[in-house]
């Protein structure tokens, strides 16, 4: 570290800011800890906010400081992240002020769960994180990459770390999109110890990127004695990435899906992105094929016009027909439409039920052949029908008693 500064700022304040705060620290020679708190919730939480700040200073061994805190209703995990971000600018600390992991956040994920919807949340915006889980996306993505300004990367890491420990995402799969390498490798240190289920690797175009991430995660898993497996979801966003899709998809056992990012891909291709997306048809079908060949899920890009629900619906229907099994969301209202369209249709469910009934009947009677009327049913067909029925039950589209 070079010359140390004495003044540091982090966070944000202003009339439109909600659930966030701004902190300014000035190291002083003496005078102890002085806190100037301006908070809209001062009468309700003033003393607990002050206590938290003092704990942070004590933890980092700061005895003399003037803190200006402008609070717009930030929760403790945000306040301490902002404070830590400022402290790191004025001290050489290697320590992290890590809030408790709530019990609700300790759930695991599994490799082949549904990933219809995954909601992007800007990594430096606490407000959007708070209620993300109640909209019931299959996954949430705390984004450290494109949605975070370069100067705010460190702030965002700390906020995302704290959010992973304190914000209840209500069972959604917990994902983080890291930055492009090598910065992304540094990101991993702040997220892997905090029950991340899936790491999204942006602009992926070769196997070596996967290997680097895998290695760093492996180191962190050993260091922190993590028992939970961490999955990977590379994002293909370049023409080269598309060409290497299968290699990437099969580069690691921990890869559960490939996602495609059409905004960057169309830029790379030099074409204009349209809602119909015919310009990327080849890339998308190629990606789907690579995923199926590697036995993983193919996840489609986001639909960026959040006001156009009908456009989104058409987009998802096409996406499903191409073989995609999920899509990114940039607004919570997109989730229900995505779920509805990726879910099996009424006709599909009815057909699957008839097949499963025939299968159970055949099994009970000890028959080697499954038949509906005079039509023979192959085992792969049964398997697909079973998948459909399971899916329908999970989505609440049919009553929930599954036979095994």
């Amino acid at each position, binding site marked *: 570290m070079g010359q140390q500064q004495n003044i540091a700022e982090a966070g944000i304040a202003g009339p439109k800011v909600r659930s966030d705060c701004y902190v300014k620290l000035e190291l002083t020679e003496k005078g102890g800890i002085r806190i100037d708190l301006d908070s809209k919730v001062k*009468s*309700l939480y003033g003393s607990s906010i002050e206590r938290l700040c003092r704990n942070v200073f004590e933890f980092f061994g700061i005895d003399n400081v003037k803190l200006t805190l402008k609070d717009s*209703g*930030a929760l403790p995990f945000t306040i301490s992240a902002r404070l830590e971000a400022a402290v790191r600018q004025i001290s050489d600390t290697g320590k992290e002020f890590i809030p408790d992991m709530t019990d609700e956040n300790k759930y695991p994920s599994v490799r082949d769960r549904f990933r219809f919807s995954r909601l992007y949340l800007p990594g430096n915006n606490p407000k959007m994180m708070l209620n993300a889980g109640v909209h019931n996306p299959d996954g949430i993505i705390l984004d450290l990459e494109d949605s975070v300004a370069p100067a705010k990367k460190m702030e965002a890491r700390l906020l995302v770390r704290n959010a992973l420990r304190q914000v209840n995402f209500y069972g959604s799969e917990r994902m983080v999109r890291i930055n492009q390498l090598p910065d992304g490798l540094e990101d991993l240190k702040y997220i892997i110890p905090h029950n991340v289920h899936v790491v999204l690797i942006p602009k992926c175009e070769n196997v070596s990127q996967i290997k680097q991430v895998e290695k760093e995660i492996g180191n962190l898993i050993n260091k922190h004695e993590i028992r939970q497996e961490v999955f990977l979801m590379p994002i293909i966003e370049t023409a080269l990435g598309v060409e290497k899709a299968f290699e990437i998809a099969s580069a690691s056992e921990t890869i559960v899906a490939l996602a495609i990012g059409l905004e960057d891909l169309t830029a790379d291709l030099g074409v204009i992105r349209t809602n119909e997306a015919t310009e990327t048809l080849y890339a998308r079908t190629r990606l789907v094929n690579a995923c199926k060949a590697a036995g993983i899920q193919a996840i489609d890009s986001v639909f960026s016009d959040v006001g156009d629900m009908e456009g989104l619906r058409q987009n998802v229907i096409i996406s499903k027909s191409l073989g995609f099994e999920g899509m990114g969301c940039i607004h*919570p209202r997109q989730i229900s439409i995505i779920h509805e369209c990726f879910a099996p249709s009424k006709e599909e469910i009815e057909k699957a039920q008839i097949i499963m009934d025939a299968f159970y009947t055949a099994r009970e009677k000890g028959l080697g052949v499954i038949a509906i009327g005079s039509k023979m049913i192959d085992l792969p067909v049964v398997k697909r029908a079973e998948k459909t029925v399971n899916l329908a039950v999970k989505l*609440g589209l049919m009553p929930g008693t599954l036979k095994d």
Partner: protein
Amino acid sequence: MPKTKLTKNAAGRSVPLEINGRPVIPYKGVGKHNVAGVKYGPKIYTCKDFPSDGNKCVATLKEALKNAGLKDGMTVSTHHHFRNGDMLANQLFDIAKEMGVKDLRWFPSASFPCHEHLIQYLEDGTIHHIEGSMNGALGRFASQGKMKGTGVLRSHGGRYQAVQDGEVEIDIAVIGAACADPFGNANGLYGDSATGLLGFALADSQYADKVIIVTDNMVSFPCVPWQIQGNYVDYTVEVDKLGDPEKIISGTTRITKSPDRLLLAEMTAKFCDETGIIHNGFSFQSGAGGTSLAVGEYFKKIMQEKGIKARFARGGSNKYLVSMLEEGLVDYILDGQTFDLEGVRSMAENPGHVCTSPFTSYNYHGKGNFAGMVDVAILGATEVDVNFNANVVTHSDGYLLHGIGGWQNCLFSKTVILPIPLFRDRIPVVVDEVTTLCGPGELIDVIVTERGIAINPLRTDLLEKLEGSDLPVKTITELKDEAEKICGKPEKAHFDDQIIAVVKWVDGTVLDVVRRVKE
């Protein structure tokens, strides 16, 4: 300020026995207060003392106020149909100040942020106190204990009741009307300041000693329909402009885009569908807030899918409700306050779009009112506690923020649902005990939050209907615990002894008080 004697009312709240020098009755419980006696009787006047040609026009509002005998200590009333675009109340007190009149009691049907202008008159003693909602800057001013007298907060129905029963004697009512004739007949339907109906001014026209109609659209006699009848009116005044049309249209009458609020609306509609509240011939109250509007849109979708029609919708009308009327999804809109120009248009041309007043819809001291006939009312709240009591006037930090509006009156509908977030920017909404009691929990049936739905244990019927539903039903205590887990347990807001306002119940009794915030 002299120490007032306090007593515990039936809700367990300490309330005074006297407000602004007059005795008051503590709240006794829902439906427990019996009344006797006669209504307030205004003075008798004769037509021989009024112009025989029917022309009651005077040149200026100042002249009208002088003629009406404006003097120290009087009660003057205004109305809020111009909402945040109102220019009349500010003009009225500018004139009072010019005339050197002191200690007026302002009795608005509601106040808006545009009335911040009046703080100077509260400070210099032109206005003694406000009996009506105090929002924004006025609320803060009052909460800091700076108002000379004690504020009195009433519901729309309670305001009618207070006037009718003689609790509030209005000396001069100043009624702004989008359209009027020189005799004083008036309506809110036509002209640049059109706002629909004038129901909030009905009581004032009937009971005030002097009534002044102010319009920016004077037409020849007769001005029809005469929502306000000229036979009650003393003076008419023509002015250039009554209000700012852009601000007259309520800012809240757009469907919310907030995903969190849309989720609340969707859950509320789903609840109403699953419990059978949405059925052929049902009725609903829809508010003007973004969430309520969205609930209406979800209702509409369900009704269209299932071929269900409502008999009537109650509430502030707006373009969304009008579209339901015009598409035949509701037979009638019983309109208490018209929120946009589509509402005004519909009211003028559609016989199914009916004007109401606090007398027909809300007045508790009448031979019935139709608030109780409504199947479901969807309302807001700033706080709800574990006993389902709710607050609409203050936030947890203790500051006066909102008026009661028709909220208390609507609590008498068959099912009352409050879709509210569990917390707002760290301020918990579901709490141990409400800061200010505005609605007794026994009248509040369902709390819908983004993290779960709580049903009042008194409503076993609703609980039964939801058995097996995938709606996230929780207890109210579970919701409160969840809010505290996320936000932390709040400290109690700090108040001192000074009572800055009282909250009246619909029968005129005192339900609770608001105290000065210690800063």
